[in-house]
């Protein structure tokens, strides 16, 4: 494919002794491994469990909201269900999902390294993550928390009767895992790039993971300290956030959102990377405006730290502060828009193949655009005041985090599945699931924009009759969405045994990760790769792809069935 490796023959499949999946066997060889590929799979297992748990809580919520009365859950258990849903989905699914599964597995391969910079730290971070997850499950078993994932004071510190300390401990401990992973990624990108792989030859997925890691390193500790403060206040009665004793509950909101707005970018930046890889590969195009794609990522990572006040327009913050944060929120939307435009421009005159990863990617671009534009509604003070704490906000951030990040996770998993497992997934089923996810998502969350704008507040288990039609639509959509999420788990598991064997580079993609066998050998590359050109070399530079003589459409890379 690329001129780089045309001379060098790459075996499609490694020998049994080299294959990272079969090189060592037994439970201990997995639980004590320092191989980034195996640790990526360990993360996949753990994160899938949390996705089920958080999804089960969401299912309960949607079931309860089917009727206006509270017939399934009491107000209190409803509060506990949405808090559990939020905490698990944010810290145990969305934040670790793409970086720790796909990043862990792909980052060293994409830069031609043998492993991450600190392989043992990588394994330790998985154990910390699992420990944190066990604390989260303990929180649920011991009665749950009713504060919402935002832990607002003074509810958390003085009034909540849930197990706030355990929930805070779970998130606190998970933070160590996040930071350890981020330090590892940053050091890897800086110091382990293959010879010739200069910064501006890095694939955009690597850039995205790098920018995410920077945000993780700088934002996560702020959350850790804030959780420590509320835990100390709840456990020892110190008065920092207690208004009765001169403390300031709004200070908590400032510190919390200083973390939690960048956390949104922790969840979405890695998806940007995945989409850039998939769109270029399935349009057979160089990415449009590579350097702007890089600067956009870094710009988002930086300016993302300066917009937290848009969550606090109704907190009594000064009008001046509101306007500044509103302006900065519009500023941070610019690089996201650049990315959407550049993906679209990449498609222009491309030879587009609608394989499953591409359907996920196109779905991502559509849903992310809606999520981003409604974010601008929320960034303008007057609109935000109207829809604060309504389903409009819920719909907005689910468009980004679920429509965006989860679509990208499934797209990335399908795209790299042959590399990870050495097996092809069944294409027809995958396309079906991808389309279903798009429509299921729309049915679930678009009605929320409407009912939110009409005034339906979030976090209530009962509601006036007039909103029922929207809630029924959303609950019905959630059922479709649930099937669309479960279906890939089924056929991907099926493909592990019955899937066709993959060749080294089934999609004819250009990244270094495809220049080794599928699945890769334990050492990643038989001969250490050397890079002589930039990424996405799908056609000669300064030339469009040949418009007239299209390659014949060949699903799954035209492999013999």
């Amino acid at each position, binding site marked *: 494919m690329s001129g780089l490796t045309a001379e060098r023959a790459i075996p499609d499949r490694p020998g049994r002794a080299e294959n990272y999946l079969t090189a060592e066997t037994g439970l201990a060889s997995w639980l004590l491994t*320092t191989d980034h590929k195996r640790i990526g799979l360990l993360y996949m297992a753990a994160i899938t469990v949390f996705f089920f748990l958080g999804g089960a809580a969401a299912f309960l919520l949607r079931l309860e909201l089917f009727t206006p009365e509270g017939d399934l859950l009491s107000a209190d258990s409803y509060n506990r269900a949405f808090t559990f849903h939020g905490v698990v989905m944010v810290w145990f699914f969305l934040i670790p999902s793409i970086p720790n599964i796909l990043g862990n597995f792909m980052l060293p391969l994409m830069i031609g390294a*043998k492993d991450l910079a600190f392989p043992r730290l990588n394994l330790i971070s998985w154990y910390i993550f699992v420990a944190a997850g066990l604390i989260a499950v303990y929180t649920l078993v011991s009665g749950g928390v009713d504060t919402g994932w935002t832990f607002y004071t003074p509810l958390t510190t003085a009034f909540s009767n849930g197990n706030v300390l355990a929930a805070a401990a779970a998130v606190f401990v998970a933070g160590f895992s996040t930071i350890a992973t981020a330090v590892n990624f940053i050091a890897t990108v800086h110091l382990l790039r293959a010879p010739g792989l200069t910064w501006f030859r890095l694939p955009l997925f690597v850039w995205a993971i790098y920018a995410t890691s920077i945000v993780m390193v700088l934002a996560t*500790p702020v959350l850790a300290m804030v959780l420590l403060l509320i835990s100390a206040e709840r456990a*020892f009665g*110190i*008065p*920092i956030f207690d208004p009765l004793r*001169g403390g300031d509950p709004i200070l908590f909101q400032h510190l919390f959102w200083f973390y939690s707005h960048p956390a949104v970018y922790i969840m979405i930046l890695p998806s940007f990377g995945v989409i850039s890889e998939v769109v270029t590969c399935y349009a057979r195009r160089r990415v449009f405006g590579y350097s702007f794609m890089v600067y956009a990522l870094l710009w988002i990572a930086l300016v993302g730290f300066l917009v937290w006040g848009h969550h606090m327009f109704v907190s009594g913050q000064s009008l001046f502060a509101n306007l500044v944060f509103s302006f900065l929120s519009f500023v941070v939307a610019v690089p996201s828009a650049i990315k959407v435009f550049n993906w679209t421009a990449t498609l222009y005159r491309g030879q587009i193949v609608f394989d499953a990863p591409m359907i996920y990617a196109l779905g991502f671009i559509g849903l992310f655009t809606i999520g981003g534009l409604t974010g601008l509604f929320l960034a303008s003070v007057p609109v935000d005041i109207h829809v604060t704490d309504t389903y409009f906000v819920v719909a907005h951030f689910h468009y980004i985090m679920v429509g965006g990040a989860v679509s990208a996770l499934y797209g990335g998993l399908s795209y790299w599945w042959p590399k990870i497992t050495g097996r092809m997934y069944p294409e027809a089923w995958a396309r079906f699931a991808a389309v279903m996810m798009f429509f299921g998502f729309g049915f679930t969350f678009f009605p929320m924009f409407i009912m939110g704008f009409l005034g339906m507040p979030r976090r209530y288990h009962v509601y006036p009759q007039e909103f029922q039609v929207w809630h029924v639509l959303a609950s019905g959509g959630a059922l479709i969405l649930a099937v669309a999420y479960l279906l890939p788990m089924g056929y991907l598991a099926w493909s592990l045994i019955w899937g066709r064997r993959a060749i080294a580079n089934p999609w004819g993609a250009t990244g270094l990760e495809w220049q080794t066998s599928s699945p890769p050998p334990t050492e990643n590359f038989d001969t250490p790769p050397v890079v002589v050109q930039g990424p996405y070399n799908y056609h000669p530079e300064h030339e469009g792809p040949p418009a007239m003589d299209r390659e014949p459409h060949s699903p799954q890379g035209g492999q013999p069935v």
Partner: protein
Amino acid sequence: MSEAALHKPWRSLRRQREAAEFGLWVFLASEVMFFACALTGYAVNRVLWPEAFAAAARETNVLYGTINTGILLTSSLTMAVAAESARAGLRRLTLVCLGVTIAFGLAFLMVKGLEYAEDIEKHLVPGPGFRLDQPAAQIFFAFYWLLTAVHALHMTIGLCLVGTLLAQAWRGSRPLSSPAFEAAGLYWHFVDLVWIFLYPLLYLAGRS
């Protein structure tokens, strides 16, 4: 010897050492944000309640604080010597300096313990029966306890790290060329530096 210290993804010991240091610097950036969060809270409240903070800060024991500042600064010197001599392969000097660093660290924690005992005796723990009348003085002491406790926890972790390195260097199970000595040194200096911020904020505020 250098063979034993070289680990998997690395091709050269120099690169590996660079990575250990670089990784630690990135981690320290994270630590800076951790303390910066609490210090922001301190700053906000100090601006809101200047008199109460000044009055409360006069209650801390500046003698213990100053002694501890001296102890920590000296321990950073011995730690730096330990890291440099490990790099130069001087085994005896490394062992001695690591030992002295641990002794200083323990001395710091002991002085801190004495101070905590005195604070409790003087009813400087936020809550009912607090010594001062202004409610915001309790906020100062909330930060005092929180920041010094988190700092002491970092000291304890540092002591464990240095102790492990001392034991490993003693038994020879870790080669002196290992980048861990340098990395532990960086961490130790950082914890020292945090104290350099805490000392004026907690002990000197209100005494000018």
